[in-house]
């Protein structure tokens, strides 16, 4: 039985795309692949302009452990290596490949041998080589995450909550590739050196739970945990709580309480990397929002310009106002639709002005909904006030740093306060203050040392 956690909200799930199969879209004429599609050290290009590249060929790499290489998602000719607009807003060095529409596969990565498939080192090495990152949206290099947790954690949880509205790519993957998915989860289990692994799935995907349970998950060491349908069930801390009843300490990460959380699509990508020798070059993206006639799940190569994806999804039926990368609760607005799709983009939602409920002059009516909705049991109503006043002492007292920006407070706010946004600012302020204090302390220490030396 899953354990409960406090708060949360029940947004309109709008998961209409979960009913129809994943459709592979026609690849674009040109892909723009940013060399950063992960959290960590940027990759350096390993190809030059004019090179002929194959599909799946390594095009960007850095040896730093906290990084994930990128691969060509189509075969063709490298047209340019230049800064291009990233989905997240910055200009990022990107490799532009002109598609030859042949999809000539690259032979660099071959499927792992039977022996390697049972060797944690070999699996982690392959995860690293294939450029696998947290596909739920965090984009943290998976190999580093698993290597760091191995031996330290006793429980690994695969995150199949998919609690964000609209998104149903994970749900479709469970239904369409159940065996492959479970083999991928088995690899994650083996990479951690564990006998058992938990798979938490929200109960609104009962068909997927039934299907997976009918395919003998215990054969792979998997226990499926049906979870309460509530946002933010899929947040790491909530997953740990729901599956193990352990609570991650403030400022801590799941491994602090002996847990590691890996998302569903990451598991599937690991399966493909290990069993098929296919690096991370494509993913299922839920394309939806009120600007489309119908929401759909599309298999999209990384680097595909968003405008191409939107055209393939049937085009807009309403004047678009905002593009959201990821789910609508924690997703990030994308300003430029020429940006290439990246690994962490689980959804691309386009909303018209009708869906925009922001207000120019938001007013708090002190209804207290935010207090009841906060899964971290914080008091957003007061945090908002103190961040606005820049009262650092109170901000710390009210635990602004504990906010993980799930958006539940803002979602349910009738006064339309930019609560989550303000807490992001508050966290940045506190971090800047901490950094400044550290610098000051260092400078003081240096000065003291210099003074001592001068005396001596």
């Amino acid at each position, binding site marked *: 039985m899953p354990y409960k956690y406090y708060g949360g909200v029940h947004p309109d799930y709008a998961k209409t795309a979960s009913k129809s199969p994943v459709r592979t879209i026609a690849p674009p004429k040109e892909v723009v692949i940013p060399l950063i599609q992960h959290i960590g050290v940027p990759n350096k290009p390993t190809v030059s302009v004019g090179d002929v590249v194959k599909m799946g060929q390594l095009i960007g790499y850095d040896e730093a452990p906290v990084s994930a290489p990128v691969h060509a998602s189509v075969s063709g000719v490298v047209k340019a290596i230049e800064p291009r607009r990233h989905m997240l807003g910055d200009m990022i060095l990107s490799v532009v490949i002109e598609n030859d529409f042949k999809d000539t596969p690259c032979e660099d990565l071959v499927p792992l041998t039977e022996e390697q498939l049972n060797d944690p080192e070999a699996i982690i090495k392959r995860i690293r080589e294939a450029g696998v990152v947290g596909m739920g949206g965090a984009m943290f290099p998976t190999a580093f995450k698993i290597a760091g947790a191995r031996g330290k954690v006793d429980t690994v949880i695969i995150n199949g909550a998919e609690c964000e509205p609209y998104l149903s790519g994970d749900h479709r993957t469970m239904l369409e590739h159940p065996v492959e998915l479970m083999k991928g989860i088995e690899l994650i289990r083996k990479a951690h050196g564990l006998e058992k692994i938990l798979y938490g799935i929200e109960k609104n995907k009962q068909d997927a739970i039934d299907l997976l349970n009918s395919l003998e998950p215990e054969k792979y060491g998997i226990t499926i945990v049906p979870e309460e349908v509530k946002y933010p069930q899929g947040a790491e801390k909530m997953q740990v709580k729901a599956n193990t009843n352990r609570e991650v300490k403030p400022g801590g990460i799941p491994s602090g309480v002996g847990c590691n959380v890996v998302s569903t699509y990451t598991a599937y990508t690991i399966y493909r990397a290990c069993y098929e020798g296919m690096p991370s070059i494509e993913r299922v993206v839920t394309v939806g929002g009120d600007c489309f006639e119908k929401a759909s799940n599309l298999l999209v190569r990384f680097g595909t310009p968003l405008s191409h994806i939107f055209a393939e999804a049937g085009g807009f039926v309403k004047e678009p106002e905002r593009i959201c990368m990821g789910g609508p609760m924690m997703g990030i607005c994308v300003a430029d639709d020429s940006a290439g799709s990246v690994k962490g983009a689980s959804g691309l939602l386009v909303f018209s002005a009708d*869906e925009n409920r922001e207000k120019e002059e938001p007013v708090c009516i002190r209804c207290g909904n935010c207090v009841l909705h906060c899964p971290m049991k914080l008091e957003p109503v*007061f945090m908002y006030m103190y961040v606005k006043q820049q009262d650092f002492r109170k901000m710390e007292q009210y635990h602004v740093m504990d906010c993980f920006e799930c958006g539940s407070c803002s979602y349910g706010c009738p006064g339309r306060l930019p609560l*989550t946004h303000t807490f992001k600012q508050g966290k940045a302020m506190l971090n800047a203050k901490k950094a400044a204090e550290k610098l000051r302390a260092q400078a003081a220490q240096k000065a003291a040392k210099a003074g001592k030396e001068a005396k001596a």
Partner: protein
Amino acid sequence: MEEKRLYKVTSNPIVRVKRDTRSIMLDVIIALLPAIGMGIWMFGTGAVIVLASSVISCVFFEWAYEKLMKKTNTVGDLSAVVTGLLLTCVLPASSPWWMPVIGAFFAIIVVKQLYGGIGKNFLNPALAGRAFLTAGYAAFMTRWMVPSALAGVVDGTTMATPLASLYGSDALPAYYNLKSMLIGYIPGCIGEISTIAVLLGACYLLIRKVITWRIPLAYLGTFAVLTFALGKEGYDSLNWTLLNLASGGLVLAAFFMATDYSSSPVTPKGQLIYGVGCGLITVLIRYYGGYPEGATYAILIMNTCAWAIDALTRRRQFGVSAADVKEEKAKLAAEKKKAKEGAAS
């Protein structure tokens, strides 16, 4: 180069719940309709005049103040209408037309706008308005029109309320019984006479999740338990408790006044404490005060404690256990001790 079209960027969450301030206020207005309708049925034109005068002046003062101070106009959020309706509920139908105007001025200008407008007032505006009028025009505030249901049963145009009879020296007149008090065939303020009508609106608020059960339940629960325990000579304890619950503005106050967002606590535990406090003070005033109705002052007194209650009832955040808190406290105490010893030596 051609200007590239850029899409709008907002912070997450990209979507928001449909419910906004205006729709919440609209729900409160809907919830008040049965109670006010009952008042109009029982008291006729007098109630209508109070209603019109109260709502119009609340909206006017809100509009005028914001116009004068060059602030954004917030009449559209309907909160002034709600204040107007609530003020109507807690005034006698016999009030002259200018009394609600004074009450509305105090409620909207002094209590609400001078403290910064919606969400910033620390007192319930309608109750503060009523308290102001009670202080200034006590005679008008205690003159009770005979409801149409009792016309012919009693002589004259005014009469004593059941609450006054309950706590007075005389026995309760025969035309007051639990049934008539639940339905509302009694004199009193416009919105408070019919307990059933008030409960109907309260159910609507609970179903629509405009309010939670915490404050009303803690309030009425505390009140019922204490009244039952204290009792009164000549009455069966249960009957006494029920008569008390159904008389005066208690139920209206518990569901519509004590739950006012900006003057009540926001933490779940705080809401319970606040409700218990309201119940306790109401009983104290009814039993030992010189004035039969206690709810108004009980709530106004607890209003002033709301922020303190919030500060004292904060929850342990996610990931912090009771042991963690203890440890943290011990650490702080040790540090303090150390600092003290350091200063001493």
